[in-house]
């Protein structure tokens, strides 16, 4: 967690664009929240029935740990939407993005219940989870 799940119309996000957007997602999430990169998952789908496009070209849904401020969430949405626009060339009005809060205590990752936002360093030291570069 977080999990950023992106559904898009077939061909709307190229193979070249996906890793670039994933890098941006990781950077944006970590810059805004202070979370370590190791926690950030970005998954891309095409025409996935579990995440209807509702007339858009791309729909990004971010499941993030509860405790982020409205301003942080707004910044994440603005910057990730801009990344999709930049790398995939999809007009901003054809991109939808939402976030949903998940309590950290509901999530188990790296062999332990996840830390509350802001408690990651102690958690990482305790559980020897290796953050990514």
């Amino acid at each position, binding site marked *: *967690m977080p*999990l950023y799940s992106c559904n898009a119309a077939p061909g709307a996000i190229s193979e070249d664009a*996906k890793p670039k957007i994933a890098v941006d997602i990781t950077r944006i999430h970590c810059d805004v929240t202070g979370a370590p990169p190791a926690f950030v*998952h*970005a*998954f*891309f789908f095409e025409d996935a029935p579990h995440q209807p496009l509702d007339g858009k070209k791309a729909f990004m849904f971010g499941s993030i740990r509860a405790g982020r401020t409205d301003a942080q969430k707004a910044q994440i949405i603005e910057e990730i939407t801009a990344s999709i626009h930049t790398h995939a060339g999809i007009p901003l009005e054809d991109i939808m993005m939402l976030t949903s809060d998940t309590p950290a205590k*509901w*999530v188990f990752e790296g062999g332990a219940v996840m830390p509350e936002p802001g408690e990651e360093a102690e958690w990482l030291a305790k559980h020897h989870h290796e953050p990514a570069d």
Partner: protein
Amino acid sequence: MIPCTCLVQEGQISSAIESALRSKLDGFAHEAFGVGVNINWIEVPKTGGFTASKPSTSSLVLIQAPVAVEQDKRAVLLGELCNGWASETGQTLNEVVGVISDPAAA
């Protein structure tokens, strides 16, 4: 039946292991909550999964409990869930994310 979503990387889990996981998840839910699971098995397309900006080998399993769960019990169940998944797939615990949510959050 309670909802269970499994997100796995395409090609990472064989059909035989998928079948074993489905059975194990149903058994887990019966043991933990007294009900079976309705599994939505979703494969992340190859080249579409990233963790920490790198190609992902992570699996996520999300179960919605039928009733609110005390945190002490949830922590134990999460450990059982993720350890059971890892033992079946050979993945490390760093590659397995488990979520047990309360029903109100669905």
